[in-house]
C-alpha cells in the first residue's frame, strides 16, 4: 500500500500580504512560504493510515521557494520518501498546470492512494484533488475528515454543510482531498527536524507540462469594502470599556 501526499505551499498566515507593483500577484519578497494548512492535514492523515496499516508514505512537492524545507519537514513527520518534482517555472496561480504536473508525477510513482488538502488559498483556477483525479481517471472525494483503508478500498468520512457526515467507500486507486486529519498534525521538535534534514534523501523527477491558460488574472486588490467596522481606538482598557458600552447600549449584555 503506497500513499502519496501532494504538498503545495502558501504564505505564512501571520504574514501581511501586499500587492506587487504589477497588481497581479502578491509581493513574494515579503512573505515566508510554508506548507498549505490543508496539505499539512493530508500529510498527518497519511501518516495515521501508515501507522494503522504499515503503508508507505511519499510526500511530493513541486519545485519552488520553500518546497525543499517543506518536504524535509514531511520526512520528519513520518513520510518514508520525499520527491521533488521539477515542472519548470509555474505561475503560482495556475493550479491547473500544477495539478497536471502532480498527475504526471503520480503516473511515475504509481501510488494506491493520493491525499492532498481540500484547497489552497490561491487556487482560484481549481483544487488539486479533483483536477488530479479527473486527469488520472480515478474516483475522488473532497472535504474529507477521516481516511481508513479497508479490504483494498478506502473509507472516507466526507463532510457537508453544517458538519453533517457520511462514509463513502472508494475503490483504489483513488484521490482524497482532506479538510482535517483524524487528529491534529503532530509537533516535530527542532532536534528531530535537524536530524531529518541530515537523514532525508530527496528524490527528484522531471515532468513536462504545457500551459495554455484560458483564464488570466487582471488584477489583485484588497476587497472593496461594502461596509467597515467602526474602529475603536485606545489602549486595551479603553477598547474594552468602549466595547462594554456598545454591548450595554445594544442590549447585548445579560440582565
Amino acid at each position, binding site marked *: 500500500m503506497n500513499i502519496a501526499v501532494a504538498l503545495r505551499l502558501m504564505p505564512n498566515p501571520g504574514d501581511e500580504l501586499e500587492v506587487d507593483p504589477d497588481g497581479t500577484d502578491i509581493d513574494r519578497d515579503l512573505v515566508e512560504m510554508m506548507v498549505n494548512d490543508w496539505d499539512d492535514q493530508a500529510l498527518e492523515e497519511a501518516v495515521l493510515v501508515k501507522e494503522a496499516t504499515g503503508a508507505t508514505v511519499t510526500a511530493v512537492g513541486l519545485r519552488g521557494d520553500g518546497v525543499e524545507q517543506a518536504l524535509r519537514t514531511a520526512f520528519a513527520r513520518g513520510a518514508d520518501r520525499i520527491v521533488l518534482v521539477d515542472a519548470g517555472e509555474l505561475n503560482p496561480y495556475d493550479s491547473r498546470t500544477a495539478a497536471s504536473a502532480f498527475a504526471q508525477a503520480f503516473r511515475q510513482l504509481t501510488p494506491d492512494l493520493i491525499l492532498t488538502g*481540500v484547497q489552497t488559498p490561491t487556487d482560484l483556477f481549481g483544487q488539486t484533488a479533483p*483536477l488530479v483525479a*479527473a486527469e488520472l481517471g480515478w474516483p475522488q472525494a473532497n472535504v474529507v475528515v477521516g481516511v481508513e483503508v479497508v479490504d483494498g478500498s478506502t473509507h472516507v468520512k466526507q463532510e457537508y*454543510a453544517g458538519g453533517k457526515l457520511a*462514509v463513502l467507500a472508494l475503490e483504489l486507486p483513488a484521490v482524497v*482531498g482532506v479538510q482535517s486529519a483524524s487528529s491534529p498534525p503532530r509537533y516535530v521538535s527542532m532536534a528531530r527536524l535537524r536530524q531529518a534534514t541530515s537523514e532525508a534523501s530527496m528524490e527528484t523527477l522531471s515532468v513536462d507540462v504545457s500551459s495554455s491558460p484560458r483564464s488570466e488574472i487582471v488584477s*489583485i*486588490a484588497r476587497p472593496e469594502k461594502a461596509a467597515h467596522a467602526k474602529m475603536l481606538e485606545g489602549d486595551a482598557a479603553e477598547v474594552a470599556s468602549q466595547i462594554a458600552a456598545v454591548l450595554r447600549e445594544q442590549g447585548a449584555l445579560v440582565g
Partner: protein
Amino acid sequence: MGDVLVYTEPTGNTESLLALARPLAQAAGGEVIALRAGAGAGESDGLAGADVVLEVSHPSLSSYLPEAHQAALTAAIKARQPDLVLLENTTAGYDLAAACAELADLPFVGYCQQVSLEGGQAQTASGIYGGQLVANARTQLPAVCAINSTALHDHAPAAGRGEHAELTPPDELEHLRTKFVEEIAPPEEAGVDLAKAERIVCVGRGIGGAENIPVAQDLAEALDAALAASRPVIDSGWLPKVHQVGKSGAHVKPKLYLTLGVSGAPEHIEGMQGAELIVAINTDPGAAIFNIAHYGAVADLFDVADEMTQLVGG
C-alpha cells in the same frame, strides 16, 4: 449556446444560484438550465427560477456520491454545451466543479463573489488568501464557475419557463467505483449548542494555542456567552469540533458575536454573517473580519479579553 447550466443540490442555496444565473443567461442570449441529479421523481422545490429543469435519474444518484454526480454533470455539459456552468462552493462544488471542467475541457474559476459576461468572456471577482485579497479574472467562455456561498444571499428568485427535460444517465453510472456506506452523526458535547446561543465569543488562529483558551473561556463566562472557534483552532486540536462555527460547523445568528483573533475567511463568515452585533478584535488592520464586523479594534486580544472580563464579570 448562450445557456447557463446550474448544478443544483437539495440542501444548497439553489434559488439564489438560479437568480444569479438569470442575468448571465440574458447577457449570453440563452436560458437558465437547472440540472437535478437524483434517483427520480424528486421534488422541484426551489427550481422555479429555471427555464429548463434537466433531470437525470438513476438509482446511484440517490445519495450523494462524487463519482456519480461528476458523471451526471459532465454528461449534462456535453449534451447541452452551455456557455457557463455554475455550482455553489459546497462540498459538491469542491468535488465536482474543477473535475467536470477538466473532463469537459473547460476553464474553471473558483471562489467567485461576482460574475458577469461580456464579449464572450466571464469577468469574475474571487476571494483568495482567505478573503484577504480579491482576484479579478477574465476567462474565455464556455467556462465553469464555483460561487462562494457568502455571495448567494441577496438574490431574489426570478421565475423561469419551467420546462422539464430528461437526460439519459451516462454509462459510467453502471460501473461506479464509489459506494455509499452510511451517514454518521456529527459529534456532540453536552451543554454546547451554538445555534441556540444568544451570545458567542469566538476564537481564531490568533489565540495561539490550547493553553490560551482559558482567556477566552473566562470572557465567555463573564458575558454568559458560548465559546466558539474558527477552523484553524479546531484543526489544531485546541478545541473540540463541536465548537466550530463556519461552512463545516455551526451556522449561528446570535445577538452578540465577539471574535478574538479571527481573520474572517469566507468559510467562517458563511456561518456567522447573520449575527446581530459583531465585534472583532484582531492585530491585523487588514483582517477581512473588519469588513463584516460592526465594531472592531486593532489590539492584542489577550489584553482586551482580560480587561473586558474584569469589566463585565465584576
